[in-house]
């Protein structure tokens, strides 16, 4: 979703961007000097050509001395220009790619330190596209833009200068006539723009239809609905073809039309030039030089107008990227961290208040004391804020007021890493990285041996399906397709089984696993949680009956706490929840 940059005005973004380029200021200056040099030589060559032609007057009247001298100068100029061009290209590449690298590295570091509240609120696709596409666009546009803008202006001024040095009448003619081609180009562009806009609307509709129908293809096929769908598709497709034809045709007229205008200028310059030659105002060689200037005069104009669009685009891209880089990071770590050496699993929440947005109160004055080895269950209907507690415990979010203490030390007096070392976590939202099964399991313990990994997988009941994958533990997993949701959960559980953390957090960790496997895993968890504190979020009540303490949540509030028996005796919300699971069986 293209958003208006909040990073400030174009000028301000430009100022910030210059800071990144500043590191390479030496190279930038060198590049600009080279541009001036190239420009001067490129413009000088037609003059030399003209002079050379003037040495070739006619039969027996060729002045070879002068010609050879001119040709040698031409050769040297050409050689130097080529060398300068190559050097400039290499330097520009260097600046571009290094600035992009710097920006990306900074953006990535920022992502590592951004608060989860920001990351949760921004779709990952959007952030990735800022880091990748926007960074590329920015670098291309800005740096190429700068050099082309500069050399473009130099070329225009230089061409006019040289033309005036040849003959002011010719120069004025070219000066006045050439911009016509720019108007023609703009005119056509504005005409085809409306067709392009229509095209992109229809194309958008078509893509939406394609998306939907391919996603639902199995249903379409199951119900034999293909023909009806095809009819709808073809209708849009025919419409698209009509607008595309118009858009493509009109825009393809730009080239012939501008070429026509150029030919016009060329013809006028040729005629006037020839007449001037007859009147001995200029030489034939000068006419030839003037004609080649007339030929190349429109190029820098086109380039500059292209560059300006690109620069604006680059600045917009930079704005989006800078917005990410300038985001407020997480609260800095405390300066005198008191990270616990060992974890026994003692956790205390004291008068905790928390809400994601101030308007919607969530957790209010919540206190809880967890002794080492206790099993705490959090239950409640979907969307009641169970996961919030886990966000607080892991310090993904900070409390608004109150305190959370682990091992009798406030978690805000620890480093985040020091705190998280104590936890092992399995979330409902499984995350598998693009790597082998083995690497995925060993994520929390990179130095684990194969035996340990396999043992963990067996405990998580993942071993039997892993063995059936094409390459067993070496199978490379991709993001969506290969595994079922249940299998993904089993892998995530294997991770924790391997890492053996002192405090266990399970957030709906078995929601997609069948009840029988779940039961087996439950036994493994039970064995594992001997002497470990565990926090369990679950919607299947059977899995949390043995908890030492059950927190019942509703609409973000903790409405009841107690053991299973105590809560049933109360006959409150918990009893209702519990019975609804079995009522109809």
């Amino acid at each position, binding site marked *: 979703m293209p958003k208006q940059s909040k990073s400030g005005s174009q000028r301000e973004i430009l100022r910030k961007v210059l800071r990144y380029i500043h590191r390479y200021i030496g190279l930038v200056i060198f590049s600009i000097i080279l541009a001036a040099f190239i420009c001067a030589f490129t413009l000088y060559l037609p003059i030399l*050509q003209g002079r050379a032609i003037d040495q*070739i007057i006619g*039969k027996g009247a*060729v002045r070879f001395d002068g010609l050879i001298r001119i040709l040698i100068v*031409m050769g040297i100029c*050409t050689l130097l220009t080529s060398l300068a*061009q190559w050097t400039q*290209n290499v330097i520009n590449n260097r600046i571009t*790619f290094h600035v*992009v690298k710097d920006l*990306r590295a900074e953006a*990535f570091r920022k*992502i590592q330190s951004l608060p989860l509240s920001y990351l949760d609120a921004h779709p990952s696709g959007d952030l990735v596209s800022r880091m990748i596409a926007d960074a590329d666009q920015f670098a291309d546009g800005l740096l190429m833009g700068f050099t082309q803008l500069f050399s473009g202006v130099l070329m225009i001024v230089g061409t006019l200068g040289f033309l005036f040095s040849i003959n002011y009448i010719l120069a004025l003619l070219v000066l006045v006539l050439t911009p016509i081609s720019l108007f023609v180009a703009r005119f056509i562009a504005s005409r085809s723009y409306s067709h392009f806009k229509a095209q992109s609307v229809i194309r958008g509709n078509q*893509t939406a239809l*394609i*998306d939907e*129908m*391919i996603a639902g*293809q*199995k*249903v379409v096929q*199951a*119900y*034999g609905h293909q023909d009806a769908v095809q009819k709808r598709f073809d209708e849009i*497709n025919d419409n698209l073809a009509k607008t*595309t034809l118009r858009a493509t*045709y009109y825009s*393809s*007229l730009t080239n*012939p039309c501008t070429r*026509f205008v150029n*030919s*016009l200028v060329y*013809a006028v310059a040729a*005629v006037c030039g*020839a007449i001037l030659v007859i009147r001995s105002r200029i030489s034939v060689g000068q006419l030839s030089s003037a004609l*080649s200037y007339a030929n190349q005069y429109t190029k820098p104009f086109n380039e500059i107008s292209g560059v300006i669009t690109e620069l604006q685009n680059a600045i917009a891209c930079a704005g989006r990227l800078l917005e990410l880089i300038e985001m407020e990071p997480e609260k800095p770590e405390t300066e005198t961290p008191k990270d616990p050496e060992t974890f026994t699993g003692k956790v205390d929440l004291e008068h905790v208040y928390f809400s994601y947005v101030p308007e919607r109160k969530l957790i209010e004055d919540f206190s809880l004391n967890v002794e080492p080895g206790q099993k705490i269950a959090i239950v409640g209907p979907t969307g009641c804020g169970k996961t919030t507690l886990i966000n607080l415990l*892991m310090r993904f979010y900070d409390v608004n007021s109150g305190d959370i203490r682990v091992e009798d030390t406030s978690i805000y007096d620890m480093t985040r890493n020091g705190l*998280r*070392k104590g936890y092992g976590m399995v979330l409902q939202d499984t*995350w598998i990285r693009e790597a082998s099964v083995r690497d995925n399991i060993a994520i*929390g313990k990179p130095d684990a041996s194969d035996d340990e990994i396999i043992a963990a997988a067996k405990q998580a009941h993942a071993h*039997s399906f892993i*063995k*059936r994958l*094409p390459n*067993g533990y070496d199978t490379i997993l991709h993001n969506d397709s290969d595994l079922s949701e249940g299998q993904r959960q*089993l892998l995530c559980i294997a991770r924790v089984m391997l890492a053996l953390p002192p405090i266990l957090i399970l957030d709906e960790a078995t929601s*997609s*696993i*069948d*009840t*029988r*496997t779940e*039961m087996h895993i439950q036994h493994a968890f039970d064995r594992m949680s001997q002497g470990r504190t565990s926090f369990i979020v679950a919607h299947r009540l059977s899995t949390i009956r043995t908890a030492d303490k059950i927190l019942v949540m509703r609409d973000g509030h903790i409405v009841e706490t107690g053991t299973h028996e105590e809560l049933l005796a109360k006959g409150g919300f918990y*009893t209702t929840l519990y*019975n*609804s699971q079995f009522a*109809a*069986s």
Partner: protein
Amino acid sequence: MKNLLPYLKPYRKECVIAPLLKCTEALVDLFVPLLIARLIDEGIGTKSTSVIITIGLELLGLAALGLIIAMIAQWFSAKAAVGFSSKIRSVTFKHIQHLSFQSADTLGQSTLITRLTSDINQTQTGINMTLRLLLRSPFIVFGSVIMAYQVDPGSAWIFLLIVPLLAIVVYGIMWITIPLYRKVQGKLDKVVGISRENLTGVRVLRAFNLQQHETEEFDERNNALTAANVIVGRFSALTNPLTFLLINLATAVLLYVGAIRVNIGNLTQGQVVALLNYMAQILVELVKLANLIVTITKSIASASRVSKIIDTPSDMAYPETSEAPFEDGSVTFDHVTFTYQGAGAPSLTDVSFTARSGETIGVIGGTGSGKSTLVSLIPRFYDATEGSVKVSGHDVRSFTESDLRSHIGPVMQKAVLFAGTIRENMQYSNETATDEEIWEALELSQAAEFVRGKEDGLDEIVEQGGRNLSGGQKQRLGIARALVRKPAILILDDSSSALDFATDAKLRQAIKNLPYPHTTFIVSQRISSIRHADHILVLSETGELVGDAPHDELMKTCDVYREIYKSQYKEEPVNA
């Protein structure tokens, strides 16, 4: 890629005319230097203003002619390119619609979408450019050489020397850089990959304290990308300077040779200028051609990706007519084994059972035990790898697609609804269904109540993917959609998981009492959903059938079933 060419056939005329016209236009360009030569030699030589003006008018005439020809040529090429790609898009879409599930799974959804959209657009651009430029540019290059011969054979050898040299430089650099660019793309993909992973997996990565490790990994990939870019840049930076160098050196040589020939009277000053102009034209066209080749290479890659889809056969053949009529909803599996393409082990192993018409069959088993696979063999979404699946007493492969599928109402795990009204969604399974029939189906699927509650009833708009409905509502509409066609075989693949127990029970009751004969398959993880089935198929983790009997019997004989039961009924409900 040959399979795409027939679609270009209707545009044969355009494909011939457009390039021919472009060449004619080029011819016009080629005459300009000759006119300039005459301008200098005749006009200036004879000091005749009228000749100069005549030549000026001729230049204008040529320009106007060029413009008109170009305008016609662009029209033909745009027409051919757009028409062709539009046809291809329709054909490809149609082909995708008829791909077997197996082929569609192998290709993957996102691939199919990019090929239908950006790849076909790229192909369109490629064809347009090819028609306009592929002949024109070489025509000008060779034309310039030939014109140079016309002007003066004695100095035209310089052209013969320089054109191949330039070609070698331009295409040699491309030949070196294109594979390098591919490497850069690979390195970029790695940077994108780690960035995306760090965003989607932020909780896990932070929980395991991996930020430092990830940053190091990122820097490594980022530096590798930059290095690759710098290297490829060094080569591609050569193109302009080298062509510039060659052309200007050739110009110098041409001036010198020209001077000698002018001196001995074989050439005029104006002709030298004309030769120089031809040289300049060659440079311009070669650069255009190089860009064109990049575009065409991309288009060919895109076109071959599209063509690969059309080439993917629908690996499911249907007979022209059904060997026997579809009579009843009985289903028989005869030693059926099924392995997904590329999978290491079968998902179903030697499964045999019979379901008589009118029975309700439960299917239960652990995650990944092949429950969904089993039922998807009935409507022939996939074909058994070994053994045979029979419906109505005959192999499923002996029915036509519509004969087979029109009698089966499958409801998938994930309720897929389409953008449109509720009525349109219901009519997916039966285009002629009346409102009355739809309401009946909604009634049966326990969806009537909430649909009635909607402001527009059946005309209520469903957003794409059913975003504006709850999970339970979507599932009930999915079931209703299957019932609208009054299927002889109804398949409910874990399709009531989002319903509460009471609604689920009512739904099962309603389906049991449907007013027409039907066999029902209920796939579920919940014992409660299937315990009243006539018989229950129990699948083991390896896809073997370990039980096929009613609930009470399975409780006595089947260990797996008993364990599943135990895992769900550890405790009898309180106050129930």
